[in-house]
């Protein structure tokens, strides 16, 4: 089925809440993982998979005209798995096996281990190049689809991102949309303190991209900008959406503590988080 049905913002917000809870349960059960990096991108991924942005068929996961979604910030694997499960790619019960030996939901995504997982990521910096390859292949094959790549902000310190950025503009990849989850923190601290990225808008613009900025937790705004980016395909200019987000969004004590980066919540913390996510409007 094409997920192009109209859906209300309220319904989308409900899905976003489910994904947040899925991420919490998965990482808490596994005792490790990156909940805060997953939570910052929940609204972005919700809009993509459930807001009629991506065209996909869960029953035919490798449909050759599917829109591609590449999770370049592979440590947000729990978010990817939860979205794929809720989109119908596989059973929700698989989520409980995150990070277990023999499980197809590995700590970081491995291409093809689960239907819908497009790329092996986790060594940061690699997803944008893959997206360009999909665009060039689709163009050569005469297939019409869009390619969405979710980048982390710290990931943009990697040289390959800028190699890819340069070539995306050169190859006029108008159907390539990158979304930058700009939560302002990398593993060891605030990005501005560690390896600053600013001026980010000007950097991407100077590499030949059309740059948008959006509040990455405002579902209406995120949805609007994703649809706009798709409509700009004919310009031949790759589209960058810098989504301003909050690391750990939805759980106040995680938002306030960047050291949660690669760390699951304790059972007591998880209980508090569950209450807070459920209580949110």
């Amino acid at each position: 089925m094409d997920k192009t049905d109209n859906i209300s913002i309220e319904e989308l917000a409900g899905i976003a809440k489910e994904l947040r809870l899925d991420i919490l349960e998965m990482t808490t059960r596994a005792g490790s993982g990156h909940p805060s990096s997953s939570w910052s991108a929940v609204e972005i991924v919700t809009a993509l998979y459930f807001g009629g942005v991506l065209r996909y068929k869960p029953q035919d996961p490798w449909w050759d005209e599917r829109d591609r979604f590449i999770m370049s910030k592979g440590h947000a694997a729990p978010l990817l798995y939860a979205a794929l499960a809720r989109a119908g790619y596989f059973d929700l019960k698989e989520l409980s096996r995150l990070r277990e030996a023999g499980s197809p939901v590995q700590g970081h995504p491995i291409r093809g281990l689960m239907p819908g997982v497009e790329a092996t990521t986790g060594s940061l910096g690699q997803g944008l190049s893959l997206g360009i390859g999909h665009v060039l292949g689709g163009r050569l094959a005469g297939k019409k689809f869009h390619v969405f790549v979710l980048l982390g902000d710290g990931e943009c310190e990697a040289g390959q991102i800028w190699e890819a950025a340069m070539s995306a503009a050169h190859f006029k990849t108008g159907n390539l949309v990158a979304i930058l989850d700009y939560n302002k923190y990398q593993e060891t601290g605030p990005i501005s303190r560690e390896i600053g990225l600013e001026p980010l808008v000007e950097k991407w613009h100077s590499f030949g991209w059309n740059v948008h900025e959006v509040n990455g937790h405002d579902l209406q705004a995120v949805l609007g900008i994703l649809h706009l980016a798709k409509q700009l395909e004919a310009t031949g200019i790759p589209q960058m959406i810098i989504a301003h987000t909050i690391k750990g969004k939805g759980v106040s004590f995680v938002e306030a503590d960047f050291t949660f980066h690669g760390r699951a919540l304790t059972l007591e913390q998880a209980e508090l988080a569950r209450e807070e996510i459920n209580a949110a409007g």
Partner: protein
Amino acid sequence: MQLGKLAGLQECDVPLRNIFGDALLDLVRENPRVVVLDGDLGNSTKTEYVRQEFPERFFNIGIAESNLVGVGAGMAGAGFYPFIVSFSSFLLCNAYDQIRLAVAMSDIDATIVGSHGGITLGKDGPTQMGIEDLALMGGLPTFTIIVPGDPASMQAAVRAAPNIKGPVFIRSSRVPMPYIYPEKNTPFVVGKANRVREGNDLTIIGCGMMVSAGLDAAAILAKKGIEARVVDLHSLRPLDREEIIAAAEETGAVVCAEEHLLQGGMGSNVARVVAESHPVPMRFVGLADTYVESGDPWELLEKYHLTAADIAQKGEEVVKVKAGA
């Protein structure tokens, strides 16, 4: 000394890289799924032949090997069969992690071609030489690894690659290599070593240009009454264990020869099989722990002891050890 002359091999005056370029062009003509990506070295690797005839199926990704590998892997995700080509040194050393995740761990169908393997690119010097490529490829478990040693086997390897499940590495070279096999009906099966000379006193196992050098060495040894078997181990993965075990059991002595560091290359793979199946005296011809300098390729081979004479000397030595044992 002309490679293959002592062994009576038919000379080929076309460098192996040109043979590769022509074979790739033939493949692109025949197989519409094949696309070619290069890192701005198409005039050296000879992917330029494809670029000239099929510009829409050729992508120069520029001097950006990480992106080159990623874009190529992405094209596989869109249904194409990519040949990702550059110098072995730059491609593997710059983009090892990209090859590891996007190609090897993803287990996609794609071929990586490392051109200018070994030291015989010569005068451009050690920064350009791929002397560690086979060791690096060995660290990527899903790859098939092929080191063709003559024009016909290069042609066969390029033809075979898209039919192999999972990723493939082919080593190409700047220098000509003489014909070991006829161009038509080449006995080339991936994973099946070729016995190119019979003999029972020892076995010389080589890959790439060292197969011809091994045949020359066998000619030198024959004048001293030593009959060497010579095996072309063109596939390092899958490794033809049966042929290696047969060499150990039937000839009782093995010399390995490769245009590569001794560390982690063909010889160490062969040694592992010999050690665990039928231990016999072994000797190794290759680069000891050293980089090589600029120079004429044939002078460099002599200076770094990678010639037929060096193989023959090791052969005599290993036969003596065998006799004394």
